[in-house]
């Protein structure tokens, strides 16, 4: 079964199947063509919610709203203004995209169940508006007389379009859309969607702007649903509000969840299952709502990766291109005089607790700075401020000759200051190579359209990035694991993957938050090698670490923090003798004559 299905997903096989379907439509009954046409609408819809919910991780419980906007938009433009089919379909998709764009401003501010509730509310508003805006939508009576192939009232360039021709047009469009989607999802833009899905903070740390990326996901997804709506409107020739209620939103979600969220084959499988079941099984049609409920209730426990996860091999999240040889790394020239990074007088408080108090730190190009201090002394907070996750209450951060104080994290990363986290934050379903490729995000020059069309320029850039990624993976000693999903890997390998991801970004400054924690002796050696490699390339490195022997071998200088204040700066050797440092770690000696209570 698995072999058969994976054979069916190969491009030439898919192309042959599509042509066969298109030809077969000429010979099968009208009822069959009708079901096939509904199937295509459902494929588009399932792909639409999958892009938003499965790929970009933004749950949608009101997807019928986008479908309805496209359906009513396309139907009304043709019925009232006589616009031709291609234009009404495009307009339906554009109206969907516009509503997705609008919704993203509200939805981008919330996540998790708040987002779920908001999208539920969106679907309900749409339903209420359609039901009550009688003069435009026909209200509860519905909108009839939409030009439709079934009634022979649909024309295209003066020709009457019958059900079979309409199906063939849909087949071509849906196939084209899915092909574009596949290219897009395996491009840097698609990987950015997955990065946002897993961790917005980690995505920001590699230069993915979260608000814009989510907005794009909403727009694209809603455009697909709008297109599906346009096709649907002409397919049935009649629109009523009940078609676009909660029931439809749930059905769309069921198709994507059962098919397998996050894959492209999954939504197709889901659409096939839930187009045919109600047609073929009377009992299913009768208890449809209950069955959908049960499926949603149980599928995340019983079938977490859907039918695609069960039946198909793991999908790829990078394009299948031959890697170009990696060029020798160029040593960048500093663009300003003075240190690469300087943080001056930085302070921040959380709920009254002063986490950093007038702390100042500088790092030069090619310098390795150790950041040391007891737990809670403000080391990670300082890195969070430099990398743009927190906004300092006071103080100034300059990097590479420009002020970065208060810039959002993705903007800091885009300028070349990158970081790792105490707990590796990777995309679990991605392989090591795909995770490392995420690091290249700030370097890509291709545009989304070129990526979706697989234009030669985009493919060349992908090949070059792949070559560089493979070279870094080799340097990190991970070549034998490059095609293993990171969720199957031990902690140490995940850490090295995260560091490789940062190196691919061609950084100027790298901040590592306790990189040695939990690493074996061999892994420590390799980690040290990578840090030295960065230093040789003129990269500044900030190393938060408790492992003193490891630091001793690497650092040029250390800064010691205690209770948010810098208490020592200088060499490692001097640190051990400094009375303030000793006091911070071991406590103060009691003064002679002071009373000691047992």
């Amino acid at each position, binding site marked *: 079964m698995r072999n058969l299905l994976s054979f069916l997903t190969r491009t030439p096989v898919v192309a042959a199947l599509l042509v066969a379907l298109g030809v077969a439509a000429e010979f099968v009954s009208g009822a069959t063509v009708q079901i096939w046409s509904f199937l295509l609408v459902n494929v588009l819809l399932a792909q639409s919610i999958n892009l938003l919910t499965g790929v970009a991780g933004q749950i949608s419980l009101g997807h019928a709203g986008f479908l309805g906007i496209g359906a009513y938009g396309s139907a009304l433009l043709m019925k009232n203004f006589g616009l031709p089919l291609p234009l009404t379909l495009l307009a339906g998709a554009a109206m969907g995209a516009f509503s997705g764009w609008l919704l993203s401003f509200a939805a981008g501010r919330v996540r998790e169940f708040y987002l779920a509730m908001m999208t539920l*509310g969106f679907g309900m508003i749409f339903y209420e508006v359609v039901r009550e805006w009688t003069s435009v939508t026909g209200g509860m009576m519905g909108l009839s007389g939409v030009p439709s192939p079934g009634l022979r009232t649909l024309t295209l360039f003066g020709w009457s379009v019958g059900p079979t021709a309409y199906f063939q047009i849909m087949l071509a469009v849906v196939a084209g859309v899915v092909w574009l989607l596949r290219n897009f999802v395996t491009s840097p833009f698609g990987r950015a969607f997955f990065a946002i899905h897993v961790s917005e903070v980690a995505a920001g740390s590699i230069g993915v702007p979260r608000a814009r990326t989510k907005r794009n996901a909403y727009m694209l997804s809603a455009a697909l649903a709008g297109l599906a709506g346009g096709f649907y409107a002409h397919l049935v020739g009649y629109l009523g509000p009940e078609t676009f209620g909660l029931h439809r939103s749930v059905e769309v979600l069921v198709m994507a969840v059962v098919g397998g969220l996050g894959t492209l084959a999954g939504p197709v499988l889901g659409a096939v299952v839930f187009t045919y079941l109600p047609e073929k099984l009377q009992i299913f049609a009768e208890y449809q709502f209950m069955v959908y409920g049960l499926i949603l209730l149980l599928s995340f426990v019983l079938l977490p990766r859907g039918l695609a996860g069960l039946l198909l091999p793991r999908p790829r999240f990078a394009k299948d291109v031959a890697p170009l040889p990696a060029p020798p790394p160029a040593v960048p020239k500093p663009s300003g005089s003075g240190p690469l990074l300087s943080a001056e007088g930085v302070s921040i408080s959380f*709920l009254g607790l002063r986490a950093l108090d007038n702390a100042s730190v500088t790092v030069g190009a090619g310098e390795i700075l150790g950041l040391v201090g007891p737990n809670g002394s403000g080391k990670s907070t300082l890195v969070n401020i430099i990398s743009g996750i927190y906004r300092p209450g006071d103080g100034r951060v300059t990097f590479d000759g420009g002020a970065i104080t208060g810039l959002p994290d993705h903007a800091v990363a885009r300028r070349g200051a990158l970081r790792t986290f105490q707990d590796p934050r990777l995309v679990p379903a991605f392989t090591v190579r795909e995770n490392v490729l995420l690091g290249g995000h700030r370097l890509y020059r291709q545009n989304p359209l070129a990526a979706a069309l697989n234009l030669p320029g985009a493919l060349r850039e992908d090949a070059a990035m792949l070559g560089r990624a493979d070279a870094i993976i080799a340097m990190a000693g991970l070549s034998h694991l490059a095609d293993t999903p990171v969720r199957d890997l031990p902690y140490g390998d995940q850490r090295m993957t995260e560091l490789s991801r940062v190196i691919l970004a061609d950084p100027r400054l790298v901040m590592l938050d306790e990189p040695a924690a939990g690493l074996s002796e061999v892994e420590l050696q390799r980690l040290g090698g990578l840090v030295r490699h960065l230093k040789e390339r003129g990269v500044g490195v900030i190393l938060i670490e408790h492992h003193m022997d490891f630091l001793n071998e690497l650092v040029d200088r250390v800064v010691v923090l205690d209770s948010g204040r810098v208490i020592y700066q200088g060499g490692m050797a001097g640190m051990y003798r400094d009375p303030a440092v000793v006091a911070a770690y071991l406590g103060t000696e009691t003064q002679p004559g002071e009373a000691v209570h047992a």
Partner: protein
Amino acid sequence: MRDPLTLTLSPEGRGKKKDDAMQFVLQLVFAGVCVGAVYALIAMGLSLTFWTTRTLNFGQGSLLMTASVATVAMLGAGMPAALAVPLGILLAGGLMVVAERIAIRPLLKSGDSMGWVVSTLGLGIFLQGFVSSVFGSQAIAFPSLVFDSLDSVDVAGVQVSSQYLAVLGLSLTLMVAMELFLRRSAWGRAVRAVSHDADAAALAGIPVRRVIVLSFVASGVLAGIAGVMVAQITGTVDPSFGFNLMVLGFVAAVFGGMGNTAGALVGGIALGVIEKLVGGYVSTAAEHGMAFAILMVILAIRPQGLFGRKEFTKV
């Protein structure tokens, strides 16, 4: 989805010609305060599970609907109201235990909210489908239990429906009682401890599992009571009348910040009054659309609620 809480003005309300307009406004406001108190009650039910598990049941509305439909069925079978109503409400509490066990607990491990949002929604859809297949999807008449729908009293010159008044009184009493229980009793303090830090509560010897289950039962019971009260006002129940109410309860809950009781009460009442005023002056059809729009605006502008403090997430 039918509109469950369309205002039914009592015929006397429009009688006096002189201050007709004033009467109308006051009646709308009063009706808004009453349904708002019910929203607040639903919000409190959502807050309870939010406190203990950071989750809420997206099928809460269907649960509420199931409780009231079951009550009607039992009344129809000749059971006295004194028995049928408590049983219906307890059914909602029991269903919440099921929801926690199969729709929430297995999905908390993943750390991603999508799992339990989808599974509790699934439970709600299932209940809705189940009730429609047993009782049909038509509206079923819900008998008046205490007052007749036409009973009214005169409060400061305004004709006020006795049923609305009873609903308001009962909602406020329940909310005060719940709040006192949570602040004063040992179980209430345990709920607060689990809400603050479940691991630390477990270390301190608090039976965390039992507290969580209890919070779900209480949440279901509150939903059940709200369901019966709404049914008293509307006079009918049908399988789809719960979903809107769940969303409206959520709007009340986020108004003051998730988990803030006073905020939920203010939020519920404000929402109810706005809805009724829109219903009275614009169109009853626009009532709920307005409420959903308010939801989106609040979440977009202040996701932590109007009184809530920003939740602090450590990176």
